[in-house]
């Protein structure tokens, strides 16, 4: 997120999901789309069926590879060299869009200089991808328009996630593949409403609509709207919050719908941290592993029991409608927070319901200004939607970028080693993945049929690695990292390259995130769960 916001001025998908169907070439990097975004994957497959080219870059031979023209199987953590290598080819062969670079972009020279270190010999050595494939991919991407890039956690959940993201925006800017239909950079948001949670200010440094807490005019605006004095110090990010709990500077924690015991990288650290706080409230729909640790547990409703809106990965604000009455005594999260606020003499929490809350959101948020329940009743709207008669925005950056200067910014990049490296003791790289049949764990693990389809955690391992270790399909093994160990069943498969193993993290019985690494990307503060050194031992 942090990456695209600096280079393009917005951290969201530049295009609409259905526009992928119209792309002439799609580069899918660090996304196991058929598992994580099945409906986006349908668009990609349709595009291929209608003749567009598909380049897949992934350490694993994922399902989507079946539809790809080229599959670049790069080593985990080498996205920057791979993409920079492609860009070097594009420049050398003069396939870049000079007039676009000239009229719409800035900082090209510094970027161009930074390509010096990425000669194809070096790139091949770092990524493990043969040069001719890189050249071929570069040519296809640069010569077919419109071109779309899609990416997901495979790009962001790295210690150098921000660099990875900037590499994708460099590539799009270099070829002028942005600001047009079917042409852009598209981070696929994982959860149903991550986009919305960010849009409405659940981030430590910004209010709604990415308005920075540190800017005095913004602070004044919210102070007068809310009628209270506000802090201009950005707060702690999610992972830093757990550090602060661990160190004791945070004593009180209020967790809504989250299960860090399973989902947090380096989960045992997060669990220890939560045990240390004086008072923890968990608001959720089930008694999760995290809720067990709480002092008070408050029952929340599910999406089927409340009215509201979600904003999907393509910035589409859509109405969620109450289908059934709350189960038991469960209450909507907004109601609970308002009740607490009133007891703490908070002003401005007398909402009659979600519609009135949306009115306040749009009054304070330029990109949501034109959005109201009355309009949403007629159909969804994609932000930015600045006025009540604005139709919404299917693709971004048509005339100018959202940066201060209005220009797309090239970013010089350099190769940095993954946060964690293998050694004699931990010779394999573990990367985390997701299953089509589960979403994190809390919800899908309680759907009987989904657990029949994917019933347990499996360690995917290359046949040669398996035979080297003397382990067989179906055998239980122990996976050990510098942080923890878990027992898991082996699945021998060549979808993983030699030296790389993978697991999901949907199963409480096999808490994969005990192994992963919470070393953070310096900018986005996203943990590097995609690269973690492990060893596998027979049991």
């Amino acid at each position, binding site marked *: 997120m942090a990456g695209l916001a600096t280079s393009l001025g917005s951290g969201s998908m530049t295009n609409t999901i259905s526009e992928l169907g119209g792309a002439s070439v799609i580069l899918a990097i660090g996304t196991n789309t058929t598992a994580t975004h099945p409906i986006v994957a349908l668009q990609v497959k349709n595009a291929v069926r209608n003749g567009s080219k598909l380049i897949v870059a992934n350490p694993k031979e994922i399902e989507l590879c079946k539809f790809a023209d080229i599959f670049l199987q790069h080593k985990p953590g080498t996205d920057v060299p791979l993409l920079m290598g492609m860009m070097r080819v594009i420049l050398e062969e003069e396939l870049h869009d000079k007039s676009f670079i000239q009229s719409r972009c800035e900082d090209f020279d510094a970027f161009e200089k930074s390509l010096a270190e990425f000669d194809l010999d070096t790139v091949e050595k770092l990524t493990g991808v043969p040069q001719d494939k890189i050249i071929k991919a570069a040519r296809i991407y640069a010569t077919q328009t419109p071109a779309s890039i899609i990416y997901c956690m495979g790009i962001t959940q790295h210690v150098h996630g921000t660099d990875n993201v900037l590499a994708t925006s460099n590539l799009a800017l270099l070829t002028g593949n942005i600001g047009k239909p079917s042409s852009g950079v598209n981070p696929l948001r994982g*959860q149903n409403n991550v986009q919305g949670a960010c849009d409405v200010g659940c981030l430590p440094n910004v209010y709604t609509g990415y308005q920075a807490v540190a800017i005095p005019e913004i602070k004044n605006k919210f102070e007068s709207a809310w009628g209270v004095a506000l802090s201009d110090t950005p707060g702690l990010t999610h992972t830093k919050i757990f550090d602060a709990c661990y160190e004791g500077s*945070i004593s009180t924690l209020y967790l*809504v719908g989250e299960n860090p015991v399973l989902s947090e990288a380096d989960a045992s650290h997060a669990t220890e941290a939560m045990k240390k706080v004086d008072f923890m409230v968990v608001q959720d729909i089930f008694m999760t592993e995290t809720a067990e640790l709480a002092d008070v*547990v408050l029952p929340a409703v599910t*999406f089927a029991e409340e009215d509201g809106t979600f904003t999907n990965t393509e910035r589409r604000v859509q109405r969620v409608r109450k289908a059934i009455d709350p189960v038991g005594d469960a209450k909507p*999260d907004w109601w609970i927070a308002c009740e607490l606020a009133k007891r703490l003499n908070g002003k401005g929490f007398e909402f009659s319901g979600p519609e009135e809350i949306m009115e306040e959101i749009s009054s304070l948020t330029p990109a949501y200004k034109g959005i109201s329940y009355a309009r949403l009743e007629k159909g969804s709207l994609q932000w930015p939607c600045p006025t009540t008669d604005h139709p919404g925005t299917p693709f971004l950056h048509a005339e100018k970028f959202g940066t201060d200067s209005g220009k797309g910014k090239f970013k010089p990049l350099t190769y940095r080693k993954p946060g964690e490296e293998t050694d004699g003791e931990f010779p394999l790289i573990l990367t985390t993945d997701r299953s089509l049949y589960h979403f994190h764990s809390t919800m899908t693990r309680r759907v009987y049929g989904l657990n029949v389809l994917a019933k347990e955690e499996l360690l995917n391992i290359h046949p040669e690695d398996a035979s080297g270790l003397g382990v067989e399909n179906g055998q239980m093994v122990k996976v050990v990292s510098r942080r923890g160990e878990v027992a898991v069943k082996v699945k021998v498969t060549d979808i993983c390259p030699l030296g790389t193993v993978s697991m999901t993290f949907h199963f409480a019985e096999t808490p994969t995130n005990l192994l992963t690494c919470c070393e953070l990307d310096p900018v986005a503060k996203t943990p590097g769960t995609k690269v973690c050194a492990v060893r596998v031992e027979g049991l």
Partner: protein
Amino acid sequence: MADKIELTINGQSVKADKGMTILETALRKGIYIPHLCHHHDLDPVGACRLCLVEIAGKWTKIAISCKTEVQDGMVVRTETPEINEMRQVTLELLIADHDTDCLACEQNTKCALQRVADHVGVNKERLQRLKSREVKAPIDDSNPFFNFDPNRCVLCGICVRTCDELQNVQAIDFANRGLGTKIAGFGDKPRIESNCESCGECIVRCPVGALTEKDYMKPTHQVKTVCSFCGCGCGLILGVRDNRLVSARGDVSSPANKGRLCVKGRFGYKFVNHPDRLTSPLIKRNGEFVKAEWDEALDLVADTFSKNKGEKFAAISSAKTTNEDNYVLQKFARAVMGTNNIDHCARL
């Protein structure tokens, strides 16, 4: 596409777009031509041979209307004694092998085969003679979400084409030949062993009762909403009965998914009414959770929060809940607790 073509169907003058088939044109006009293998999302195959029509003029012939494009000046008759006789024979062959316990079938009253039979009519005696097979083929109930009953299958191939053309999965195909033809996973294995992704798109399109959802219950009313799993944000129509969710289908009017769903969206709603749901506030006393009233729990939380305002406090909200919930939570952290220590769980 805008080119208009004029033709006559059953004496009625009809306009159509170039490239449309006779069947599409007739159906759009409200003229029913019996059919089973046609589906508007899929390429025509002309497998069921029920949609025969007579074309007069310079083309005089009997043709399959789902594969014949309209042309200017065409004169089409959808009903002639000759055509009906041909349709009857085709239909009787189909029904001869088909289970007829319609009342126990989920598709009862919605079934395309019932509609064809109703329109075409069957000759009972001929049908009796045709009824050859008494042995029932086993039902494939290996998938946890749906069953396949070959005794109700009409071999229209809509499921096979859905899986191929729409899903690009190719989990199923026609197996065997002649009388033994059936739909099956690769190598005639049960579905669970195929590469089926359980998206359910084939069930939705099955025109008869061959592919059906397990434990299906008809909803009493439906509510239009959005799937709560991934960031695709598919439009979802939830079916409700007795204050419980009993079904889900894709919302064709949603630009995000145009009616399509994945396995989680179509079947994953079942967590909502799971018996494990938390139903009342709980307060931990001496290491054990004890049920509490809302007022008691809220008073306790508010009281403790009041002593820990500022940077000692942090809230983490959820990328699963609504914008409105999240807005109020961040406002609570900032305006009431006096801190910007607010984040959500997924940093992508």
